[in-house]
């Protein structure tokens, strides 16, 4: 591995480096002369976990820079001396890099360009690649000069929630003037506005132990669990395992911390049942050990390689989960604490140690914790002059005094930084000494630390409430969700030794819970370290903006105003000031905001509230959550058996649910759909046509109680249906409204084939299974869907019998006498192929439906066409099917819409009074029997040339069209070739008794208003003679 080598440091040479440094992989000397790849004096001459053998170029705001593989965009910018990287949300204040991780509130950039532009990308986690293009956001005209920074001048007026108190006059100005201005000013980065060109994947993963985080605790946990043989998955959001071990110059056993991490990673990689997922963030924790994790498969490249996804969303099912996600450092609140160059101490150490990038030349360190010693040590070893150590505590430990001595820094115990000076970069800091005097110290870097908050988000996702831990002045996980344990900093154990120990224990326990025993892993020797720090949240100082939530520009004053206006609960604070609601979800600000509110309202922090974290832990590309379900692949496509043949015929297709059905079959010379459809209808009525009706639901029902079962789910009677006969049936829901209809045939004493509408096939099957398994389990009956297994075609028209004689095998007599209307039989066709023949008619013509196993569907349609050639047979689609059913006044989906009763549809006579059935009782409620309910009628335009439209409402002639006179609506319409004009079906108040009346079909949304005549819904062959011929 490229990385830390022991390069002697001048300071260490003088024996002032402190024990830690003498033992450690230590950051080497700076190289004052610009070197490798146009890099500057901001990159150390050697060291860091970057590949100096290669140099990569990138641009920021159009200017070219160079960095190394192993850099993040943030470290590369620092190594190029770039400090100003963004503008804040509200006041457009200049901002620099604050952190070295995903919690970054300031350094958000637009990464990539064109359709691949990704707004709000954290520079601190964006892996550097050759040709990377990044731009700052939310500024105009430029990052250095941003007009809207003028907002700062009126900041007092732009106090928390100011917009609730103004923009109210004149009322009409809100949408027209105020809001557009606000919307333009708000938001951060710009979306590309173009379709995402990349692809995404979803994948499932099952394991015994999921370990979240590859730092010291996570590595130990993975090792302990992995050695037991348990199936272990280790996810780390970084592209390199180690976490804090890479960011610090620590010693583990005989190795530098980074080398130890690599060593453990290597052993883990060698274990057969351990799977390491780098660049993978576990973003959500859900019920029953389900976790979602985002793998950034190719975000470290300019573009994903061909056939590879950009990202992959894992759904991980884990018996146990060890949360080892570390902790997030907190900023301190003081005047102008957001100036570029003010950085978290941990981030400063990370940039020095891991990236050999120098965030400043003259540093001041401000904190109230013992870690300061390490910060100072790392800085001075890197050749950064530490001007002062400001520790809010009056009593500072020896380690810090030693660090001060070693680095030659002034130690200001009991002091505090009250203000940062400078605008685009910090130039100095004002310090209030223990004596209360204020003095200004020049510096270009302020390393601050307000302590650490455990990264406990995943525990909170499942509703476990964090508890306050005075020991580290932070929230730690409370009662953990089932199957989850924590280790290391995530559990409030901030020290390295604790991390290793708790990790080893948690890993072993988790594996043990899954039935894998093993030996405890030996914890390597590490330097004892003190993680003590005194609670310090804010510093009172001169009037200057002191920020709590950097990204949303929520200042101390805003929190005070919220308290003042009674927005005191943590949720009110959040919602009123927007604290914690920015893209970082308050990772660095929530606890501080809570602490300030507690202080302002004289309550303890736990009394004030806890923070609730919601998924995802880190923002996730919406495309990744959708995976490949987009475009044509959004949902599956079901193809009827004749699809290929229909394509050959040049059919026009239509989506009906997941099915793709032939809508009509245009012929050369036909000018529009109406001409084709009308021709198909005429062909059926005068000769013969064929239509694929395989999409209708088919359910095979068998058993001694099959007939009794049908009696209970249908309104009409089935026990008296003869074998070899079919019958039309009607089903209700238990609430008495119509569920579905269809024709069901009795093939044998104990065997029925139920058909449903295409739309309700799944619903009806589910309903029948419910009725059998739950309502009447004692019935000896079984059922199964055979919709997919059987291809079924309707052959309709006066010549249909002649055509079928050429399809059905000759031994079967299908004459009218032998096979009358509503006959059903199992036959053979096309020379011995198993088939079913039904004498059914939806069209009103002499018609049959013939079914064969789906695999023969294509052969059957070709055979039917061949047999029908001499009769000029033509295929017809769903449109012609619809026209003929409307001409015949059959109800369909438009009428069976879940709001109609059997009586509404004129099917009351089908409700048996001699037996019970689903829906019988509730159908008898007063409102369902009301005479003025809209009932099923037919409608003709008075002006026969007029077109009718479904969805038009019926209003009385001569009355003003208002809701009070609304009498129903048109459900279905068609142009009837038989009648030569448009006809309609509808639901009209008291319609059954109004035949002959005229009403208006009022259709304002399409500027329609037609006079129509109410009539019987059966327009064609009312006597029904044709279908019996």
């Amino acid at each position, binding site marked *: 591995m490229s990385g830390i080598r022991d390069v002697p440091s001048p300071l260490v040479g003088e024996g002032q480096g402190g024990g830690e440094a003498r033992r450690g992989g230590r950051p080497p000397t700076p190289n004052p002369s610009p070197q490798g790849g146009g890099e500057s004096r901001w990159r150390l001459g050697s060291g860091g976990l970057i590949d100096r053998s290669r140099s990569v170029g990138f641009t920021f705001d159009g200017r070219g820079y160079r960095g190394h593989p192993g850099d993040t965009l943030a470290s590369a910018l620092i190594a190029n001396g770039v400090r100003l990287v963004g503008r804040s949300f509200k006041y457009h204040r200049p901002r620099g890099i604050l952190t070295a991780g995903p919690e970054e509130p300031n350094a958000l950039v637009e990464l990539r360009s064109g359709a691949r532009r990704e707004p709000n990308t954290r520079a601190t986690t964006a892996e550097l690649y050759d040709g990377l293009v990044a731009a700052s956001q939310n500024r105009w005209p430029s990052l250095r000069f941003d007009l809207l920074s003028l907002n700062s001048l009126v900041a007092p007026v732009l106090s928390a929630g100011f917009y609730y108190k103004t923009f109210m006059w004149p009322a009409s100005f809100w949408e027209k003037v105020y809001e557009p201005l606000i919307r333009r000013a708000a938001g951060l980065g710009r979306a590309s506005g173009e379709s995402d060109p990349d692809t995404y994947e979803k994948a499932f993963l099952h394991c015994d132990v999921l370990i979240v985080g590859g730092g010291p605790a996570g590595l130990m946990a993975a090792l302990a669990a992995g050695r037991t043989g348990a199936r272990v998955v280790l996810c780390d959001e970084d592209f390199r395992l180690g976490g804090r071990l890479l960011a610090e110059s620590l010693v583990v056993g005989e190795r530098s911390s980074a080398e130890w991490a690599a060593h453990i990673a290597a052993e883990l990689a060698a274990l057969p049942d351990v799977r390491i997922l780098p660049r993978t963030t576990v973003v959500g924790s859900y019920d029953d050990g389900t976790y979602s994790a985002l793998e950034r498969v190719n975000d470290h490249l300019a573009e994903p390689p061909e056939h590879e996804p950009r990202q992959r969303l894992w759904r991980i099912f884990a018996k146990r989960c060890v949360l080892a996600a570390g902790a997030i450092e907190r900023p301190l609140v003081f005047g102008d604490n957001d100036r570029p160059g003010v950085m978290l101490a941990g981030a400063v150490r990370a940039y020095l140690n891991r990236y050999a990038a120098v965030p400043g030349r003259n540093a001041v360190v401000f904190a109230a914790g013992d870690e300061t010693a390490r910060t100072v040590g790392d800085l001075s070893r890197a050749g950064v002059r530490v001007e002062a150590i400001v520790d809010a505590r009056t009593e500072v430990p020896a380690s810090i005094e030693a660090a001060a001595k070693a680095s030659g820094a002034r130690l200001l115990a009991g002091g505090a930084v009250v203000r940062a000076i400078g605008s685009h970069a910090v130039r100095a800091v004002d310090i209030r000494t223990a004596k209360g005097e204020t003095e200004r110290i020049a510096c270009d870097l302020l390393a601050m630390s307000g302590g650490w908050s455990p990264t406990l988000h995943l525990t909170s996702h499942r509703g476990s409430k964090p508890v306050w831990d005075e020991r580290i002045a932070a929230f730690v996980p409370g009662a953990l969700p089932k199957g989850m344990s924590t280790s290391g900093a995530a559990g409030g154990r901030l020290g390295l030794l604790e991390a290793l120990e708790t990790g080893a224990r948690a890993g072993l326990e988790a594996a043990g819970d899954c039935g894998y025993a093993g030996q405890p892993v030996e914890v390597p020797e590490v330097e004892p370290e003190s993680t003590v720090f005194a609670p310090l949240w804010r510093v009172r100082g001169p009037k200057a903006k002191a920020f709590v939530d950097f990204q949303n520009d929520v200042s101390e004053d805003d929190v005070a105003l919220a308290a003042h206006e009674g927005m005191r609960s943590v949720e009110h604070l959040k919602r009123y000031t927007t604290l914690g609601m920015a893209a970082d979800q308050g990772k660095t600000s929530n606890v501080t905001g809570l602490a300030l509110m507690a202080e302002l309202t004289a309550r303890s922090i736990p009394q004030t509230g806890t923070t609730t974290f919601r998924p995802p832990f880190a923002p996730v590309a919406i495309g990744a959550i959708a995976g490949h379900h987009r475009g044509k692949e959004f949902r599956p496509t079901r193809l009827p058996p004749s699809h290929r043949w229909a394509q050959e015929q040049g059919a026009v297709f239509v989506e009906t649910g997941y099915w793709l059905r032939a809508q009509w079959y245009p012929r050369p010379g036909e000018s529009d759909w109406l001409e084709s459809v009308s021709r198909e209808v005429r062909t059926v009525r005068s000769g013969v046509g064929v239509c694929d009706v395989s999409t209708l639901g088919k359910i095979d029902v068998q058993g001694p109680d099959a007939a009794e079962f049908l009696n209970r789910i249908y309104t009409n009677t089935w026990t008296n249906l003869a074998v070899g006969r079919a019958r039309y049936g009607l089903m209700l829901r238990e609430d008495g409204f119509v569920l579905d209809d269809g024709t069901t045939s009795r093939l044998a004493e104990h065997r029925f084939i139920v058909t449903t509408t295409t739309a309700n096939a799944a619903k009806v099957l*589910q309903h029948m299974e419910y009725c*059998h398994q739950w309502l009447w389990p004692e019935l000896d009956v079984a059922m199964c869907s055979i919709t997919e297994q059987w291809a079924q075609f309707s052959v309709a028209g006066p010549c249909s019998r002649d055509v079928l004689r050429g399809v059905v095998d000759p031994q079967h007599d299908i004459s009218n006498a032998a096979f009358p209307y509503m006959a059903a039989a199992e036959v053979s066709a096309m020379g011995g192929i198993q088939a079913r023949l039904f004498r059914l008619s939806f069209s009103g013509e002499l018609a049959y439906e013939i079914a064969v196993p789906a695999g023969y569907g294509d052969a059957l349609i070709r055979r039917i066409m061949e047999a029908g050639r001499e009769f000029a047979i033509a295929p017809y689609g769903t449109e012609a099917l619809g026209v003929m059913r409307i001409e015949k006044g059959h109800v369909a989906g438009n009428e069976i819409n879940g709001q109609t009763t059997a009586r509404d549809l004129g099917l009351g006579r089908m409700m048996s009074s001699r037996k019970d059935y689903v829906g019988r009782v509730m159908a008898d409620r007063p409102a369902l029997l009301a005479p003025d309910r809209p009932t099923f009628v037919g409608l003709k335009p008075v002006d026969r040339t007029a077109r009718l439209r479904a969805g038009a409402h019926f209003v009385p002639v001569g009355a003003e069209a208002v809701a009070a006179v609304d009498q129903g609506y048109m459900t279905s319409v068609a142009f009837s070739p038989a009648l030569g004009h448009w006809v309609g079906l509808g639901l009209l108040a008291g319609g059954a008794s109004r035949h002959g009346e005229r009403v208006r079909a009022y259709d304002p949304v399409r500027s329609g208003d037609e006079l129509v005549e109410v009539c019987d819904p059966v327009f064609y062959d009312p006597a029904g003679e044709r279908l019996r011929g």
Partner: protein
Amino acid sequence: MRIDCCYCGPRGNEEFAYLGDATLARPPADPAAPLDDAARAQWHDYVYLRDNPAGPHRELWQHVSGCRAWLVVTRDTRTHEVVKVEFAREVALARVGAKP
């Protein structure tokens, strides 16, 4: 959320269809018996009223994308924890005193 189907084993909840309260019993339905107010009230309660408890809830799910068995799942509506899964038909058979 995962449901341990009696037949298929643990599966994600997206494979199941939810119906609801499994403690409801369909009232006696003799077409000859008159529908008096008591009977109507009984049917109204069956079709429309729910206890909707916050806590353990016996409910009907169907493994539609699996074995298609209807299941009686006992689940805590506050935590989503599934504590028991039974074949609905077996529960129903016990209810009517018949054998599988």
